[in-house]
């Protein structure tokens, strides 16, 4: 059995990495690297939940770690890869409204904001430092994901932004309270569906109508299937 304090230290380090990954998603230009960063982020998340499981042996956390690993580290990135191959985009160069540097500055602001906000809101909730910190990271991660959504042009990148938002939500979930596992599953399902949909649409958006019809015909079965 490892010393929890030590683990907490590790977790804190992971937090920092999570933030860095978010910053990378905001700023890097190459789609592939964005995707990889996202994968790393999800992996970090999984790791965090695993460590938490080590601290207080709640089986949900372990399951969660597994789920995250399965869905976000393996399935979704793989799928998006395929999409990226379909549509020949490698880079997402142009930013709207915000240049990377400014958006990085802004994201620092976001972290501060979510800190103050949560500290006001959780005033009488007495979370431990670690957990509170986690919540803050989660919220700011969500906001940063949104920032990605509007500052990047390509739909794929937006989708990734959305995904990282969702990571943030999950993180908050982990740290604020232990959600029933079913919730996690649900949100992940939802996630997968949305990713599918958006990416299909993305494919459609940058391909002429005709071939798009062909594509969507391939995909429509999924669509119905997934939604069930």
């Amino acid at each position: 059995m490892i010393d929890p304090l030590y683990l907490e230290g590790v977790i804190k380090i992971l937090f920092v990495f999570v933030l860095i990954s978010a910053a990378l998603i905001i700023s890097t230009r190459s789609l592939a690297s964005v995707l990889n960063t996202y994968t790393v982020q999800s992996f970090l998340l999984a790791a965090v939940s695993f460590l938490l499981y080590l601290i207080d042996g709640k089986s949900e956390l372990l399951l969660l770690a597994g789920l995250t690993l399965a869905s976000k580290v393996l399935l979704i990135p793989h799928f998006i890869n395929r999409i990226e191959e379909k549509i020949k985009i490698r880079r997402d160069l142009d930013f709207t409204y915000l240049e990377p540097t400014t958006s990085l500055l802004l994201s620092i602001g976001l972290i501060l904001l979510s800190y103050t906000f949560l500290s006001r809101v959780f005033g009488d909730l007495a979370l431990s430092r670690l957990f509170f910190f986690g919540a803050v990271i989660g919220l700011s991660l969500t906001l940063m994901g949104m920032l990605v959504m509007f500052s990047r042009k390509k739909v794929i990148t937006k989708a990734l932004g959305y995904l990282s938002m969702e990571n943030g939500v999950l993180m908050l979930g982990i740290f604020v309270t232990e959600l029933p596992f079913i919730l996690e599953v649900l949100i992940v399902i939802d996630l997968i569906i949305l990713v599918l949909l958006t990416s299909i649409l993305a494919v459609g958006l940058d391909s002429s109508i005709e071939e798009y019809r062909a594509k969507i015909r391939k995909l429509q079965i999924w669509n119905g299937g997934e939604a069930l």
Partner: protein
Amino acid sequence: MIRFYLLAMGAFLALDLLPKSHRLMNALASGNALLHLALTCTALLTLDLPVRYGPSLYLDHLNLYVELITVLGFCAAAPYAKGYTESLMEEGELDPKNLKLFYLAFNLLLVTATAALFSDNLALFWIFAELTTVCAAVLVVILSARENIDAGLKYVFIVSGAMLFAFLGLIFLFTLSARALGEGTLSWTELMENASSFSPALLLASFAFVFIGFGAKAGIAPFHTWLPDAYARAPSVSAILSGLMQNLGIYGILRTYALLRVSDSAPQASFILIAAGLFSIALAAFSMLQQRNLKRLIAFSSVEHMGLLLIGIGIGTPIALFWALFYMLVHVLVKEALLFAAGILHRQYGSNMREDMRDVFKLQPRAAWTLILGSIAIVGMPPFPLFPAKFFILLESAEVSPYLTLAVLLLLILAAAAFSNFLLKAFSRVTEEGEGEHGKEPGYRKKSFQDPYVVRAGMRIPTVFMLALALLLGLWFPEPLKVLLEAIVLELGYV
């Protein structure tokens, strides 16, 4: 229980995959809608509400009422859809192969909406709401033309993005309940029972987040931006159906606000609601003035009405709530009539733009009059029932501040002016004899506008029916409805 329902529906949908003929598919769709209608009515009549079945199925007056509204919308939309999609396919705008997908999504939307409404568990509600978003998006992109996809993307991104915040709100709620009860829960009923013991601060925060999510679903400014594009670019039917989903958002907000009423943070919450409502009304009213596109106009007007609904909820007096609920129903009726008529005009002229409309009274007199009467109704003029609803909501709003009332009134004038302006400009264009060929306008490249587009009965009847129903409600307020609404008001803990 809800699982059984889902199973049944799953079977139904599987069935839906089989048929080949359009007629059969449509029959299935309308059958489904009617089935739901029947179920709802029987539930309303027979059960002594509220009741719970199993862990997660919860029936009370409120969700049955909302379900009733939604299903009404579907029942009207189903026959309309037939005629509309047919003409779409004639035009070659809709790929016949997508037809099945269309109906799949149609039924699926209904099912998910129902499931969302009746699930007692907030999380389930949330996920099903998400699924409705997905289905609606599929309906929007059904033409798989570029701008449809664009609209669909906006819809998905904005709404789901906001919905994530709603999920944050749920997490907060869960935490609260965990703190209060030791064992966390997300079931409406349990939350309602001991909402009083929650910490107001966190409750308010969760409300704010939930509000973001469902506000986006309901098309509250500034999350409304998906709405006009979806309305304007999607085929009318899809517009209608995605419009119906707005009530889902309102429903969520209503319930969450009901949670807050017992705690100390009610005033802040109602402040948020009223502010958002006023903002929506203002934004919508101002942007309506510039619209040359009929469907966009209608879209903005539903943003405006959502704003008014929010105010009605936010005031927090029983009367206001009562009329706000009534408002929900009537708004759906009138709005559908308007959209139906707009769809007919779109078939006629191949465009929603005001410039392309010409000789409306000669070509589509019925649609024209439906539009006129519908606009009269939608701007809240008697004898249509939006008028008393408006009056009483404003009456209660004077409680908050007369200036609020004045502001709303003036903004409503703008909206009314926008409608009248549009109709005047669109309908008064008459071609005298000997006026030259109008080859330029896109509307006439599609059809020579001398010959009227034959409106199928399936499209005409629902249009007239909705309007007639609205008018009837304006002239006579049925007693059962009154009882139902009062029951809802009581259930939500308004006294």
